[in-house]
């Protein structure tokens, strides 16, 4: 019952070759799939004007209602941060319930700050940056989160296994586990609204036009014009994510 080394190689390779076509079938049909999606004419981008934000929090409240994030849960797709910089160089930052009820208390974590001590103070709305190189998509083990051809990063609730790797990989902290669906969740620029010509809920709700959505592929778009012609900044660009939420009036103290 002996066989030569050549026979062994032949037998094993033959078996492996038999197994290969099965997986090849899945890979070869990508060409057709790509044709179905096509190249997009739109690339969504967001513009936040921190000079205009008053911290009313109506955007956070609207987002929660529009996107069915449980209203009382301490998680939210978008939030507003308050920065109070005192004359001694200390920075006090808070975001009670993400700014859902606005900022009515002048105390930050039960600490009173005297008006005369304040050097500067401002509000910074934050949301998913729909990065060009999203690290959250890179680390998803199952392909449950992905980038659409118009630049928005979505999550497939039927396929997400809830491992949380994407949440750990996001440098901006925009992701969380949906308390009811138990899958990863984050802002998606109200994809269901913008694809029908409406504005995201937060953009519509803001009374001061601190939030705007635009299309970078349209040179006449007012947001595109601001991003191209005025001085704008992004958050944490050192991570190489190429975020697409641009800020006017972003202070160096912003985390």
């Amino acid at each position, binding site marked *: 019952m002996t066989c030569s*080394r050549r026979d062994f190689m032949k037998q094993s390779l033959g078996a492996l070759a038999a197994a290969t076509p099965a997986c090849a079938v899945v890979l070869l049909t990508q060409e057709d799939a790509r044709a179905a999606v096509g190249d997009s004419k739109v690339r969504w981008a967001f513009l936040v004007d921190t000079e205009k934000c008053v911290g009313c929090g109506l955007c956070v409240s609207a987002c929660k209602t529009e996107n069915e994030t449980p209203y009382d849960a301490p998680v939210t797709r978008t939030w507003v941060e308050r920065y109070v910089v005192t004359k001694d160089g200390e920075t006090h930052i808070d975001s009670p319930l993400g700014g859902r009820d*606005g900022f009515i208390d002048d105390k930050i974590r039960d600490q009173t700050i005297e008006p005369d001590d304040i050097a500067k103070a401002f509000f910074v709305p934050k949301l998913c940056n729909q990065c060009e190189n999203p690290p959250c998509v890179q680390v998803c083990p199952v392909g449950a*989160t992905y980038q659409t051809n118009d630049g928005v990063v979505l999550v497939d609730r039927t396929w997400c296994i809830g491992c949380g790797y994407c949440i750990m990989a996001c440098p901006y902290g925009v992701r969380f586990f949906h308390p009811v669906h138990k899958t990863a969740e984050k802002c998606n620029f109200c994809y269901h609204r913008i694809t029908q010509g409406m504005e995201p809920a937060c953009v519509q709700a803001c009374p001061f036009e601190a939030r705007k959505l635009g299309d970078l592929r349209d040179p006449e778009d007012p947001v595109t014009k601001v991003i191209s012609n005025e001085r704008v900044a992004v958050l944490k660009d050192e991570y190489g994510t190429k975020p697409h939420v641009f800020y006017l009036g972003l202070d160096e103290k912003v985390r």
Partner: protein
Amino acid sequence: MYKHVLRPLWVALAVIAVVLVARQFMVPADFGVHGKTFTYGFYRLGNVEEWKAFPVKYQGQSRCAKCHTENSAEIAGSKHANIECENCHGPGVNHPKQVKKLPINGSRDLCLRCHQFLPYPGSLRSELPGIDGAKHMRRSECRKCHNPHHPDLEDM
């Protein structure tokens, strides 16, 4: 060579075959690379349409104006023109077919979102007309004296 040493290999290949067959049944047909790269474009294509079909809640001022012409005109001519009706009245998606009357939020906290004065130099917040909510008429609703659709101090 003794052929029996290949037995574990056959078992291994059988396991792999089972997984590959299972994939054919358990993975949706539209799952694959749909974007420019495998890194960012590996997903189930049908999910995009599912998100597009997500129900819209907020309708926007222009829809309210179609029926509520007087209130719309009043607020449009006031300093509150840029505040969406639904910011105070909630989303209008089911109105008027399923929900006859939208709620009216008359709480102080709603007004204080903007009008609680905060002494923040450089921020638009400190330029809004504001009060100290803990002191000014703290037992009454703001709308008792201020008309939310036309909050003109001169009228008082």
